[in-house]
């Protein structure tokens, strides 16, 4: 159980950091997206990213007592962010599938193109 919670938290912080990174135009484009995410997409990426950080926090506090859990939250957030930065530096296309979470960007005139590009 402890290992499962830790693994889940690790995956959540990595995915959360990746979504936050994809909300920035440079990383969105590096992962294969065209133009930049519109306001709605940025909001969705950041909201889901923040939620994943929260999920990781809940998993870690469920796993350990408060002292260890606080330290784990801090250090796993750092590790997840660092792993995302390395992914963007070396294999940014690995994050392509995560761009789908941003949705179609309904109010963006170019959203149709973006949607077809990301799939």
């Amino acid at each position, binding site marked *: 159980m402890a290992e499962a919670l830790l693994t889940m938290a690790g995956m959540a912080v990595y995915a959360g950091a990746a979504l936050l990174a994809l909300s920035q135009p*440079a990383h969105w484009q590096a992962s294969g997206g065209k133009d930049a995410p519109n306001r709605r997409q940025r909001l969705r990426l950041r909201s889901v990213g923040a939620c994943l950080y929260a999920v990781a926090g809940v998993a870690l506090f469920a796993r350990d007592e408060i*002292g*260890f859990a606080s330290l784990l939250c801090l250090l796993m957030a750092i590790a997840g962010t*660092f792993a995302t930065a390395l992914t963007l530096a070396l294999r940014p296309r690995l994050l392509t599938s995560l761009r789908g979470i941003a949705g179609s960007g309904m109010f963006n005139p170019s959203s149709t193109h973006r949607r077809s590009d990301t799939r």
Partner: protein
Amino acid sequence: MRTDFRDAMHRLHTGVGVTLGGLLLVIFWMGTLSVFDREIDRWMMPETRLSAPHATLSSFDNTVLPHVQHLAAPGTSWRVSLASARTPFHTLRYTDADGASVRRHIDPLRGELLDGPHTAGASGFFFPFHFSLHLGTAGYWIAGLAGMAMLVLIVSGVLIHRRLLADFFTFRPSRALPRASLDAHNLTGVIALPFHFMITLSGLVIFFAIYFPATWHGAYAETAAHPQQTFNLEAFGSWSRPAAHESVGNVASVDAMIAEARRLWGGPPADQVRGWHAGDAAGYIAVRRSFANEVRRNVDVVFFDAANGERLYRHTASTVVKVQRFLAGLHFLQFDHWPLRWLYFAAGLAGCVMIGSGLLFWLAARRRQSRANRAGLHVVTAIAVTTTSGLMNATLAFLVANKVLPVTLDGRAGTEMQVFFIAWAVMFAHALWRGARAWREQCALVAGLAIGAATLNWGMTGQHPIAALQSDMPAIAGVDLMLLALGFSAAAVTRRLSRNGAADG
């Protein structure tokens, strides 16, 4: 933010970083290695590669006390760190009849003294290097100064960063050296900033009584005859009583003392037993509570009369001290939590990369300036090489010496340390001679020494990583695998430096 303020912070960051970067890198490197000091100890001391002890330790009275009574000189103090999952042996420290401090290991199951140790190990060399630089009191102050400088660097580094959020995830290793090294510096500095701040601040808080003696002196100077002793008693439970200078033959059951202490604490195990005035009628024994299962490095300790086992004094920390001990626990990392241990190690390495890449960026940027002082640049390059690849080579030379020096050599532990410092001095001379080419040559040496050290361990003990894992020795396998990872990484860096000649500028 006003440009002139940012420029001032930039000059401060650069000045402090270039001046103290090398020292900070040494402190960070030694601290990072100390995260796994017990594991490196076992790698360096093959005689201690015992199986993990049972959950319940054998009787202290039967396995340890006879050795204490036999070895510790009358009237002296002794200390036994009890076996645990990380250290499956008891460690006895005592003063012998010649007045020398001695360290011996005891098999907790059979109660036999183990051979050696023939080395100071990581816990006796890397760990004190981290906070005292092996320079005594002066070293504490130098390390403290470096810690303060680190805080200045962290704050000024944030203030001068123009695109903190925009560049948050940015790392472009394929770009030219100044850009790539600045990205690495910013990435490790910004992402791991909370860790760097926490670890630096907690390091300073541990030694607050040295760096800021007014804290206790001001509180106790007028109310106590001996301010420091009174403070140490009230804060940390440093209870004591003078010797009676009257010998007694027997020692009460230490097992009973440990059991009584555990009852008072509500169950947690003890991790250390310490005695004062061995064999004296006023001798006393302290049992300290383990901090394996909590972040806080508690100071719960119970004192007993050595002769009759009567409880003399029980200490529990006050609230303020508990806060200090929590911060100390954050830094000391003595708890048993493997995910956190690995994350601390990774974050420590990130700190080393941050400092090293900062120095590298400064050098690369300076090299591009035609008006740069070439002689000064040459010296700073040599210092940067010595405190990065040179420091790694000195560390690896220490580990290789541990494997090749004969066990029968007198003063072997001291010789290993001398090898470290001689190797480091040679690396500095080499860097002065070869200039920027030393990066590549010393990286190649790191690769050779790291792979060589792992191979020597296999050759001398028969335990390659797979055999170590099969023998339930993950500590040995872990150290070997880290050495191999370092070796192959250094080889890759050497290959890249040779290919593009980037370091030859």
